[in-house]
């Protein structure tokens, strides 16, 4: 599997196809049973720490500490990622996700949408080159969806690489350069994302999944 810099890849597939497992391997949480992961031309198994700095991950779990405030959460992660001029950067990302008025509130008081917005801020605070998203739209309200899409398009404009796992065809379609369909642990089908209609995608998906 090759992903070019600046590419927006959407990954679809039925449950149990291995999308999460693949994500764990790509984000260097687990080693592959066969083969190697290379990021930026560098062997992942040997340069884990530097390569992790280049990645941000947004999952349906927020990775946020409920009893800490938004500010403390961002401070914590910012320090772990060695973000320079952290305090300013925190102000930047918190405004980008529209939570500047809740900066000092504990995360457990946030709604689901607010928590996911904070998670977005957490994921981009260190300016990652690659952003991985695992079904990020689950349970989001309209405001949060709008902000997530804004962040994604701004990142695309900055030539960041985006890897999105989703069950929602419309979102996968909107911005992708390429769509990959995973079935039973293998890449079953691939197609370019631009100029693809929703019906085409649904047809190809059903054919692709039904074949195996």
């Amino acid at each position: 599997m090759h992903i070019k810099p600046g590419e927006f890849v959407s990954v679809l597939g039925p449950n149990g196809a291995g999308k999460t497992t693949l994500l764990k391997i790509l984000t260097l949480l687990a080693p592959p049973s066969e083969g190697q992961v290379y990021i930026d031309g560098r062997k992942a198994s040997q340069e884990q720490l530097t390569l992790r700095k280049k990645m941000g991950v947004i999952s349906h779990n927020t990775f946020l500490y409920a009893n800490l405030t938004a500010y403390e959460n961002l401070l914590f992660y910012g320090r772990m990622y060695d973000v320079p001029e952290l305090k300013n950067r925190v102000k930047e990302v918190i405004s980008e996700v529209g939570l500047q008025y809740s900066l000092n509130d504990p995360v457990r008081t946030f709604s689901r949408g607010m928590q996911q917005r904070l998670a977005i801020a957490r994921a981009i605070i260190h300016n990652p080159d690659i952003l991985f998203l695992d079904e990020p739209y689950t349970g989001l309200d309209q405001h949060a969806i709008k902000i997530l899409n804004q962040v994604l398009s701004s990142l695309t404009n900055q030539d960041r690489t985006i890897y999105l796992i989703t069950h929602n065809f419309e979102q996968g379609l909107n911005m992708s350069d390429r769509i990959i369909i995973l079935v039973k642990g293998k890449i079953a089908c691939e197609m370019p994302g631009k100029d693809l209609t929703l019906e085409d995608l649904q047809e190809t998906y059903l054919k692709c999944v039904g074949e195996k």
Partner: protein
Amino acid sequence: MRFLAKIGNIVWKDLVAEFRTKEMISAMMIFSVLVIVMFAFAFKPVGDTIKAVSPGIIWVAFTFSGILGLNRSFVNEKQNETLTGLMLTPVDRTAIYFGKVITNFIIMAVTEAISLPLFFIMFDYGLAGSILHLILIIFLGTLGFVSIGTFLAALSANTRASEILLPIILFPILVPLMIGAVQSTAMIFDQKAFAEFAGWVKLLAVYDIIFLVVPFILFDYVLEV
């Protein structure tokens, strides 16, 4: 230096969260005192009996309340899958181990610092021996406890019934530590010279080293996703 700073970051994060809610430390302190009180009913708290059983009571109180705190140190990280978030950050996973050990040590030390004087007050039992020696033993004993305890807490956090599993897998491993700590404490209360219980101190020190190094080597396996 960066590695140490990141450990410090983890400790900071855990302590801020803990002292904001104080839910764990208050439970631990209450439980520690409760255990001591239960023992007062189990053994009549008179003169010679106290002298004989107090080292044991103290360490039982410490370890039983300590286990409450240990369990929480990783179960807490299951909420919102923050443990995964931590593992994604550019730091060696052993930083998580050391950070948690330090946090658990601090919280246990605070609990001990409050429940020990309470024990002396409740039983009207003055400390005859050297306070410095006592502090040394409590330091070594607590360190050993949190080193292997944090490690096994991470292991048992992988299961659903971690509160039940942790005591069962931890206590057999703690036997040498308990023996050493209780014996030294008893000798300190008896005002014995340091040379007499130096052997136990060595045992505690060796135990601490082994059960800091081995978990350090094996910690990656315990966090496998």
